């Protein structure tokens, strides 16, 4: 008789206790080998060896392609042992030889397929192009790393194959492993150990310790040096392993029991279904966890099907597993045979009708073998124990059903959810059923098909995690996210500033991707711009007022044949619905370019359209900060106001009625590709709009200077914008046709836009957004009224910058203190507003006084407030400012 030892740390050793046990051929009842019986000490030694091997790094830090090569060497050694493995598996586990002979081949294929996938397809490192955190820029990526020491607990039904299921992903992903094969079928795991040794797998990477689960299980599942336990076994054992593993928070994957429903619909090919049902139940004597042991047969074909299945089952030849003629071999052990018999007895007691089988089979010359006939119970209802509990033998329960819905209800009425099948001549019908059965695998017109790249595992109490496929490889790794700060200085870290009195963000990243074309006749450049963008189908977006003024048609004509349509329904206060409507129009016309003609509302809507058109779905899907990873649908902006600067900014402000406030899309990729500043489009702008939009631009510029994100480049842009507005707004108000003044105001708005898109805005904008959303006050007007109040509020922290603003507005600050100069800036803004006839008070634009407190609570939550130069935490401060502006 052969003797097999434990395999620990690269050596074949006896058990510390010296104990051995015999393994029995279930077909003959005779012992075939003696095996060392591992005990607690051996388990601890194996774990220690695996731990050392992992920590040493030779295996865990081996380059993945080198590890693949070693696993391939291992597979080659398994091939060398192929015949021995097949014969041993057949004798030890009772697998019919026509199955066992394939086991080495599919094991080798599994090893080669998964090692190749691990080396060439698995995302060991994965870049995260957008982090989802706008306030902590940096490189973000994840590394997937091995877990450490894994334990693989293998059952007796497929001892070699399932050992390979555990060993392969563990090794491919850089782990080490301790394998505990089932005590009734330990031999092929021991031979795999020999193959590993011959292949030069480093010592300790694989360890094999046959021994009783009850004794070894506790050590393997509670030892602090074990990182993961992978079990294929019973639900009861799996439950206990989870409980034990919880103590040291081990990763656990469990492939447990099943009572899978094989559903035979009335349009099935009956002969195919009968074969599929027999194979699904009686293959390997029913000792397969995914067996379709609840056979649900539709009533219309029930009698015919049952008759055929009885006849087919009775043709199955039960015999010694090494006899190539046998279709079914023995049950693995006397205990398991007794269990099967007990359940058959229960089935009879429960009132099920025994159609065939239900008895042992005498195989000539094998009086001690554990042979049992294929057994079919009919008239089973799903509440019977034989329908709810896994028997793990050649016993099937046939349940009749009428409708597809009833079949689904029966199929899902189980604590298990491992696998299942549908037989039908209608793929669509079968798919509908498959989609609704709560189980981890569904086979349509087939059964028991396992494939190396297709995940296998259970729902509900059938387990956790998956074997096979990339999904399985993931189960043997853990994720490390690495963040590398882009600007490693405490004064550029907005998070660190939460516990600091220093609130200014020093250091900046400046990007201005928009091409600006400015001047008299600039509109004509649009004809070249669209070609340079590679586009052919431009949709013009505008609002009814701009359309009525004839300005949109100017652009349409300038585009000539490139213009495929016009959407002119954008409201003054753009909302998500407007974006969705315009996007739908763009989709219908198959637009590849959006041309916005209008003020900030139109341009912001266009930005939303460009994102939604490119990425699908609705505008509400994209209200995010810095998440886009590709260029969006090209956008050419033709502003008809000189205010928002939206033609160059990376933000779109849109009202969400569901949220009750304005929300934003913020991303450099939504900055328009081209901005055309042609004074033709602002010469006719009414005085009130000229004034309010200019104050919007003024607010952008001033707040960019006092923002915590202000920087030298944006300060320069902002100061020039402030100077241009201060000098040219009165001129444009006096003579709307002053083209030079108009051009200067356009450029000022654009420069202010560049300034704030990097440096951000502040409290004035937060307050203006709120009264805009709640009381429909035009944005520019709201900004203008609130700005001077906020400037005075910010003097405490931003006097230096506000003094420069005063200078840009023409105030002689030479002999002033910095604080006085800062206050003078606010005065100068108010003086400008009065000069040009801008509304001075919130009451003048319809804001009710009794709503100021509510406005304050909304405003403090506005994103813009985060960047205000003076920190804002108390809504009472904002109430005061609203009151001053009221």
């Amino acid at each position, binding site marked *: 008789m052969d003797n097999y030892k434990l395999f620990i740390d690269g050596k074949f050793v006896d058990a510390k206790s010296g104990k051995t046990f015999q393994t029995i051929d279930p077909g003959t009842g005779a012992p075939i080998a003696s095996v060392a019986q591992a005990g607690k000490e051996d388990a601890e030694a194996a774990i220690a060896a695996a731990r050392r091997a992992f920590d040493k790094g030779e295996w865990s830090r081996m380059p993945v392609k080198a590890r693949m090569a070693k696993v391939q060497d291992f597979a080659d050694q398994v091939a060398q042992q192929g015949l021995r493995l097949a014969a041993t598996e057949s004798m030890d586990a009772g697998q019919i030889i026509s199955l066992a002979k394939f086991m080495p081949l599919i094991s080798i294929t599994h090893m080669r397929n998964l090692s190749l996938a691990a080396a060439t397809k698995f995302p060991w490192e994965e870049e995260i192009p957008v982090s989802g955190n706008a306030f902590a820029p940096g490189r973000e990526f994840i590394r997937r790393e091995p877990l450490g020491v894994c334990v693989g607990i293998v*059952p007796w039904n497929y001892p070699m194959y399932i050992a390979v299921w555990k060993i392969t992903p563990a090794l491919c992903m850089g782990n080490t492993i301790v394998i505990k094969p089932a005590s009734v079928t330990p031999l092929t795991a021991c031979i795999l150990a020999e193959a590993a040794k011959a292949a030069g797998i480093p010592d300790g990477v694989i360890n094999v310790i046959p021994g*009783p689960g*009850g004794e070894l299980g506790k050590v393997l599942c509670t030892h602090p040096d074990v990182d993961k336990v992978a079990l294929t076994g*019973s639900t009861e054992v799996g439950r206990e392993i989870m409980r034990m593993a919880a103590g040291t928070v081990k990763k656990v994957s469990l492939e447990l029991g099943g009572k899978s429903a094989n559903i035979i619909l009335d349009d099935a090919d009956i002969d195919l279904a009968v074969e599929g049902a027999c194979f699904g139940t009686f293959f390997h004597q029913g000792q397969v*966890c995914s067996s379709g042991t609840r056979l649900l047969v539709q009533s219309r074909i029930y009698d015919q099907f049952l008759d055929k299945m009885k006849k087919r089952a009775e043709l199955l030849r039960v015999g010694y597993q090494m006899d190539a003629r046998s279709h079914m071999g023995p049950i693995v052990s006397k205990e398991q045979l007794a269990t099967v018999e007990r*359940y058959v*007895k229960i089935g009879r007691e429960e009132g099920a009708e025994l159609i065939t089988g239900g008895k042992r089979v005498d195989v000539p010359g094998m009086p001690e073998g554990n042979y049992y006939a294929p057994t079919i119970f009919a008239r089973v209802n799903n509440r019977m124990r034989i329908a709810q509990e*896994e028997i793990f033998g050649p016993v099937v329960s046939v349940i009749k059903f009428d409708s597809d819905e009833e079949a689904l209800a029966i199929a899902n009425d189980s604590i298990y959810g491992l696998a299942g099948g549908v037989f039908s001549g209608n793929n669509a019908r079968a798919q509908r059923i498959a989609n609704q059965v709560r189980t981890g695998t569904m086979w349509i017109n087939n059964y028991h098909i396992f494939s190396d790249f297709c995940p296998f595992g259970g729902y509900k109490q059938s387990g956790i995690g998956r074997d096979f496929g990339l999904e399985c490889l993931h189960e043997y790794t853990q994720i490390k996210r690495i963040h590398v700060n882009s600007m490693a200085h405490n004064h550029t870290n907005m998070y660190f500033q939460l516990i600091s009195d220093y609130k200014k963000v020093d250091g900046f990243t400046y990007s201005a991707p928009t091409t600006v074309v400015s001047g008299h006749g600039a509109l004509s450049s649009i004809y070249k711009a669209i070609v340079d963008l590679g586009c052919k189908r431009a949709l013009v977006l505008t609002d009814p007022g701009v359309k009525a003024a004839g300005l949109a048609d100017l652009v349409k004509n300038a585009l000539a044949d490139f213009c495929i349509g016009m959407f002119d329904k954008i409201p003054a206060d753009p909302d998500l619905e407007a974006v969705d409507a315009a996007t739908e129009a763009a989709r219908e016309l198959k637009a590849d370019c959006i041309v916005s003609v209008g003020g900030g509302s139109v341009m912001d809507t266009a930005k939303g359209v460009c994102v939604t058109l490119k990425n699908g779905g609705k505008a509400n899907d994209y209200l995010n900060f810095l998440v886009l990873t590709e260029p969006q649908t090209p956008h050419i902006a033709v502003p008809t106001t000189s205010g928002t600067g939206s033609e160059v900014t990376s933000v779109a402000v849109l009202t969400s009625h569901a949220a009750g406030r304005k929300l934003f899309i913020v991303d450099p990729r939504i900055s328009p590709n081209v901005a055309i500043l042609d004074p033709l489009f602002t010469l006719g702008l009414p005085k009130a709009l000229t004034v309010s939009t200019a104050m919007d631009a003024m607010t952008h510029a001033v707040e960019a200077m006092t923002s915590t994100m202000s920087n030298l480049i944006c300060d320069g842009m902002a100061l020039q914008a402030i100077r241009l507005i201060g000098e040219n707004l009165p001129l444009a108000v006096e003579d709307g046709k002053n083209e030079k003044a108009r051009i200067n105001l356009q450029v000022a708005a654009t420069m202010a836009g560049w300034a704030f898109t990097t440096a951000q805005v502040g409290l004035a904008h937060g307050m203006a957004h709120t009264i805009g959303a709640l009381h429909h006050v035009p944005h520019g007007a709201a900004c203008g009224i609130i700005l001077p109040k906020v400037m005075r509020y910010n003097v405490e922290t931003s006097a230096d910058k506000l003094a420069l603003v005063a200078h840009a507005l023409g105030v002689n600050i030479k002999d002033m203190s910095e604080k006085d100069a800062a206050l003078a800036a606010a005065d100068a803004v108010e003086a400008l507003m009065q000069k040009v006839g801008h509304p001075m008070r919130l009451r003048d634009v319809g804001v009710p006084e009794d709503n100021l407190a509510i406005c304050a609570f909304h405003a403090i939550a506005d994103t813009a407030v985060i960047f205000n130069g003076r920190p804002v935490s108390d809504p009472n401060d904002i109430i005061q400012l609203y009151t001053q502006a009221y």
Partner: protein
Amino acid sequence: MHIVNLDAGTVRAMRSALSQRGSIQPVRIDLRFNGCCDASLGLCTDAVNDDDLTEEFDGLTFIVDRETFRLTGEITISYVSREGGDGYVITSDKAVSEWEGFSMTDIIF
């Protein structure tokens, strides 16, 4: 011939569980199969059948199928407390699987 063996604590726990459920039926010790290899012994309340062996133990009635008892020999039931819960651990003179004694079970009513 004893079918079953329990300690005093286990008797108390079982009596309490049965009382809470208002159950007066005997407790059956049966082979149960809980999925993918390895049967185990389980507990449920049930009526006596012709093929059963019965035993009174400290006021509790236990039943086991004759064939099952031939497989197991004398059965020991222990009520245990482990991290994560309490339950019954069932072992037998002749173990029905290598995992005997590893996991806990409860009475199925």
